[in-house]
């Protein structure tokens, strides 16, 4: 399915585990250090510098853009490191997170409660994914370098729904199909 950001509740309802979603419009980047700062702002009861209502956060720290390119290599980073922070951001309206790898069971439950969706892009395909980015600009925490928050304009950026709001779980479903013998304890 093709969606334009910001994301609506109707879009979220249609995103089911296994569906490939092509995002167009503005998305924001964020990794460990930026998430920590955002949550520290919330702890101090400050208004967040970015309104995350209906927004998408892509877990990435790109390489510097070569001359003539909108961005450098920009594949997803492991998402579990953001589990400690992401529930707070969903409470501020964040709808979609894109990264790679699985997330904690507790966080997956939080996603169902907060009606958030998690998708994965292909890890290590940073050069290919950079072809889906039209423009990029650092909008927050410049001092963090690659870990700053960038505003990306993307066209048909691909990611596969991994955890949906109905409890659908792509990883468990797919791995089961190809597991020849169960792991011994």
């Amino acid at each position, binding site marked *: 399915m093709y969606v334009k950001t910001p994301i609506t509740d109707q879009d979220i309802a249609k995103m089911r585990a296994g569906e490939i979603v092509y995002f167009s419009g503005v998305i924001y980047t964020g990794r460990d250090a930026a998430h920590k700062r955002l949550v520290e702002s919330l702890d101090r009861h400050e208004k967040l510098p970015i309104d995350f209502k209906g927004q998408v956060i892509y877990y990435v720290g790109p390489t510097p853009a070569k001359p003539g390119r909108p961005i450098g290599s920009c594949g997803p980073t492991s998402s579990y490191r953001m589990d400690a922070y992401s529930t707070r951001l969903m409470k501020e309206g964040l709808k979609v997170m894109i990264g790679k790898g699985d997330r904690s069971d507790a966080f997956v439950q939080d996603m169902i409660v907060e009606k958030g969706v998690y998708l994965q892009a*292909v*890890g290590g395909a940073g*050069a290919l994914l950079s072809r889906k980015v039209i423009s990029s600009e650092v909008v927050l925490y410049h001092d963090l370098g690659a870990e700053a928050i960038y505003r990306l304009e993307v066209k048909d950026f691909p990611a*596969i729904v991994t955890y949906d709001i109905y409890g659908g779980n792509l990883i468990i479903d797919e791995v089961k199909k190809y597991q020849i013998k169960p*792991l011994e304890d």
Partner: protein
Amino acid sequence: MRLGDVMRYIEMETITSTVKALAIDANCNIGKSFIDVLREALKKEKSGIGQNVIEQIIENDTIAMEHKEPMCQDTGMVVVFVELGYDVHLKGDLYEAINEGVRQAYEEGFLRKSVAKHPITRGNTNDNTPAVIHVKLVPGDKIKITLAPKGGGSENMSLVKMLVPSDGIEGIKKLVLHTIFYAGGKPCPPLVVGIGLGGNLEKSAMIAKEAIMRDIHDVNPDPVLAQLEKELLDEINELGVGPMGFGGSTTALAVKINSYPCHIASLPVAINLQCHASRHKESVI
């Protein structure tokens, strides 16, 4: 050569320029033979999603090679193995020469600076130094430099565990299979699995890292280890984790095991996972 014979002098600029070239090349050029390995894996992969993931990885690596761009945004912390000939006289500080090469590569090669200044207070060194440098003395008057930009995703899923002799091969297999299964997509499979058996705590980790530098097609000269590599590869690929953890029959492309004698009470096992961006390049000066 006797003491007092003529030694070979090597300038620091030569080390720096070699490291710089290796770092840029390793990040952008995975090499055609590794792409062939991925193509073989694609033919065998049973999952449709898994096939699609491998296709995207091949396309990605091809774009990176053609356009001289980093294949992955995680351009790693640089690991450098130096095999230094006894008969080489270095005209300066080897460590600084290597770090200067890293500094130049990451600035001029548009690579990401991924080194935090301090493990607790974090920050960034802003030039991707220091590298992790291992120097080994060897006979001869040459220097061999092997350089690997090592990503955080796969390194984070690596571990050392001190097993005991009675754990044996079954204990080793169980540890490897559990580590890879629960790592799922986080270390970016399909993996090259480096395993260090024996030595002690740090030696096992060291030889596990050396194992992932081995040629992907080589055959272990130790028949016991060659057999274990083969069995583990099959059993890892029966876990179902698949390319990027999306499920499938290709979780690892190779298992490489290096070993070292160990204490009579011990069976150290280090597992160093290498993501599908299996980047290492070498050069002899």
